[in-house]
């Protein structure tokens, strides 16, 4: 899990940085830059959290009513 999460973060950061660089140099319009960040930012954030979280636990059954 930690390895895949790390890969996800690396890809997300790479996508956001590339989009920023391309937008800054005038290669892509702002909406393309925004679209890339909108797609890349959420998995990057979750990937980062999954990368540094404590060990993965066993799945359980929550309270499902009486």
């Amino acid at each position: 899990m930690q390895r895949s999460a790390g890969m996800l973060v690396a890809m997300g950061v790479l996508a956001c940085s590339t989009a920023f660089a391309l937008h800054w140099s005038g290669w892509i319009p702002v909406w393309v830059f925004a679209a890339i960040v909108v797609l890349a930012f959420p998995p990057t954030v979750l990937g980062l959290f999954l990368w540094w979280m404590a060990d993965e636990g066993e799945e359980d059954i929550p309270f499902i009513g009486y």
Partner: protein
Amino acid sequence: MIAELVLATLFGLLLLGIHRKVIARIQRRPGPPVWQEILHAAKFSFKTTWVPATASRVLFIGIVLVAIGIWTAAFFVMMTGGSLLVIFGIYMLHKIVEHAFGLSSGSPYGKFGGVRSVISAASEIPLFVSVAAIALFTGSLTLSDIIAWQEVHGPLLIIAFPAAIAMYLVLLSKMPFGPFSIVEAKELVSGYKTEHFGVWRAGLEVCNGLKTTVLLATFLLLFVGQLPLLWMVIGMVIITVSLSFACALTPMLSPFDSVTIQSLFTGVMLVYAGIVFLGVAA
């Protein structure tokens, strides 16, 4: 703009912390430190995490990504002075996201929270009327045009005061511990987010931080106009504190009463929009 996105998230969490602190002080409790919500997000992100056995795995995880994604999009629309309809379309989408959060877990508390988020969609109806009134005055639904219109004619807060009140009510319905916070009522544990813990809850906190910043900044841009950054920050803190007073001094309404009050307010706003329309048409 990526740095701004991260700062906006942290600032939104700080505002939610200020909200909790002000409510606590009004209720004569010490309350948590103002940065508690930032610590909350960090704390959840470090916790051991898994997906409950009863959950739909794809929806359970995917909805957290969607929640962060839609408010990231709203942030970009706001920053680029884009369409107001897109921002409020995303606001509407958030209701569906809350619903999906609740249904994905397989827990009855989550499901009831999800169902209540659909019921509380009544809070969006005053928003439509508010948007219509703004469009009637300014002749545009683009944020940059509305800001430019206010530079010539003055702030909409004075010109279209009832519309500002309607949107303020919408902001109030989005704040935790408020009179319309029926989706997170204590009888439902934590409502739609009951089973989203650990990393998933940290993701939801990121979404909440971003959402708070976007909604408060949009309110200021719509009804006061473009302000220097420092004044934007001060304005957002003032609105947060006023919302905290409203939340601390008002009991949480039952779902039926919540919808009734919001529907009544919508009726009043419809009359107002009708008057504005007739005035504009004349």
